[in-house]
């Protein structure tokens, strides 16, 4: 009953409000990421609703939006880590499951236990586990590749240190090295710039630019609005729905930002509120 109500409301909203922001699903193998009509809900409360976009290849793409806008949820839903209520995702023209080896993921730093008894090198080596495959052990050549990746992020000398003995910036670099060693074509990064020192921030920017030079695509959740035009070519403004997306020069306008961050009570909030009131009345 309730499910029906919410899906009807969803349809009504989609037809009345969604404009050009819901393109068809791209099966172009050159399109790194195409998302269509993606909705994710926790306890029937939508976290992201009707999200759709096609991303250009070889670009640095920032995802920006207020807290609770569903940015991390979007990345996780793309990688099938959480169930979707609806929607489809294409990675290089195929399903995520099919092309998962071409996607590298950098989770939020707080998502893991840094007291875990492993060294920085161990963590980076994890990026190669997919290549190594089930049951096969890690070999010397894998460790050598992991060490190379640590060198790229500038902390090769800390390879054997237990991860709790690393600073926040060094932990973030370790995560980046782990993604780099995967040698993916599309990178999904969840707030790599969160709480890092200035030197690490510069190092991460260098790495992103290097990725772009090698024609990789990176989707990066970002918090600091001031650095968006400097770091990214393309931006997705997200607040439960895609407020706007496109090249930074066109999309990153104060009007769009106002829509994303300002006016906390969006139409969707009002509808959700109305639904809740009605549920309680029943």
């Amino acid at each position, binding site marked *: 009953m309730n499910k029906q109500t919410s899906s009807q409301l969803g349809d009504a909203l989609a037809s009345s409000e969604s404009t050009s922001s819901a393109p068809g699903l791209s099966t172009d193998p050159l399109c790194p990421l195409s998302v269509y009509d993606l909705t994710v809900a926790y306890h029937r409360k939508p976290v992201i609703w009707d999200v759709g976009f096609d991303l250009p290849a070889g670009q640095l793409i920032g995802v920006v939006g207020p807290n609770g806008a569903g940015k991390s949820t979007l990345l996780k839903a793309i990688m099938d880590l959480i169930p979707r209520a609806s929607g489809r995702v294409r990675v290089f023209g195929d399903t995520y499951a099919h092309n998962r080896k071409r996607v590298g993921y950098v989770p939020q730093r707080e998502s893991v236990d840094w007291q875990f008894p492993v060294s920085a090198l161990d963590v980076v080596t*994890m990026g190669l586990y997919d290549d190594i495959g089930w*049951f096969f052990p890690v070999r010397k050549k894998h460790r050598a590749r992991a060490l190379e990746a640590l060198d790229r992020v500038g902390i090769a000398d800390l390879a054997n240190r237990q991860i709790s003995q690393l600073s926040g910036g060094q932990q973030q670099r370790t995560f980046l090295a782990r993604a780099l060693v995967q040698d993916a074509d599309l990178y999904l990064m969840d707030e790599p710039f969160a709480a890092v020192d200035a030197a690490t921030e510069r190092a991460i920017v260098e790495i992103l630019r290097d990725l772009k030079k090698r024609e990789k695509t990176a989707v990066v959740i970002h918090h600091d609005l001031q650095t968006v035009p400097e770091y990214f070519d393309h931006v997705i403004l997200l607040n439960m729905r895609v407020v706007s997306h496109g090249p930074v020069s066109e999309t990153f306008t104060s009007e769009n930002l106002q829509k994303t961050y300002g006016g906390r009570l969006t139409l969707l909030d009002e509808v959700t509120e109305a639904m809740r009131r009605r549920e309680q009345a029943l």
Partner: protein
Amino acid sequence: MIYAQIDLNWQQHDTWIVVIGILCAVSSALLGNFLVLRRMSMLGDAVTHAVLPGIAAAFLISHSRSSLPMFFGAVIVGVLTALFTEWIRRVGRVDEGASMGVVFTSLFALGLVMLVQASDHVDLDPDCVLYGAIESAAIDEVEIFGRVLPPAALILGVVTIVNALFVVLCFKELKISSFDPALATTMGFSARLMHYLLMVLVSITAVASFESVGSVLVVAMFVVPAAASYMLTDRLAWMIVLSVFIAAASAILGHGSAIVVPRWFGFESTTTASMMAVSAGGLFFLAALFGPKHGVLVKWVRRQFLSFRILCDDIVALLYRCEERETGSPSKAELADNLFASSWTLWAALATLRRRGEIAVDGAVSGAVDGAVDGAVSGDFHLTGRGRDRARQLVRSHRLWEQYLVVETSTETDRIHDKAERFEHFTDRPLRDRLDRVTDAPDTDPHGRPIPSEKS
């Protein structure tokens, strides 16, 4: 003659108890590492309790104590526990601890009720289920490949091999899914699959162990050796290896002390199972105390060394500042007042500095007089050339830091001293040179005092 025979029988029985104890502890500890690291120790607890209705149902259905139905019953319920816990957490929107509490207490209670029913029909003692009966488990016999051995040893042997194979073969899969489940899943090592595989093996191990150590004490075997080895190392492979040794040691110690310790107090020997848990607890205590990295004692000693070094630094820096102000050397009492040091530590610090030839006592060749550090006379101590070098570097670090804090981070002037006072002890030559460069090689600090140069 009769005595000799009894003695021999007793010996063999004894050996089997220890073997069963070791297998039980080792098989549990192997999996326990991952329960501890995944912060799931309580889930291990829950599963070991919740398998009870599975065991009881198997009794009721098969009307026997044969192991196979028991295994299936327990494994099914064990996995159901993990599923229920997850389900209640999601539906009830409560944290994992609360949902576990709901699941395992209800299942455990259900199991007890069923066991009481079953014990009317089958020869089964509910006490044994809770506390285990390793002594009687070691008496039973079964013949296999022409050798006679207790069935518990056989079953636990197989379980230990299975668990060891699981941990060795899936080492990297367990590592990644425990450390970063999301990443593991994106790489095709489904964290959920690993979770349920672990739960299946935990259930099997719990059932295999419960006859020997009981469903309560098996929790100690799952958690305590792993927690102890977590204190001793920061490498996963070593943690697993050490936990196996600790588990085996607690089994051996457990049986030994079960025989020996009660006799000290004039009692009969006590149950091995409980003494195994006590021994494991004792080993954990030792690891927590003496562990090389996280041990309480080692941390304490390291802290003492550090504060002693800082006290030595403070003494030479204070003497340097006195020289600078030309106020004459301070007495020992003045030093104690200024540095908040107890007289004993101050004495030790002064003795150390004299031995290193960094300070000298008036009227004596430096470092040559024993026991002259009385401080009865004012103006006792002065810096030697070497001490002055060290002091100058400290004061230079301090004042450069003050300058840096004011210029670079715009900290208020009255708040810079404490920070600089702390930083100066951890600033080496390269860092000092960089500070000097960043602050444009100042001549004076924010208070207007001269910043000494690196070399005199």
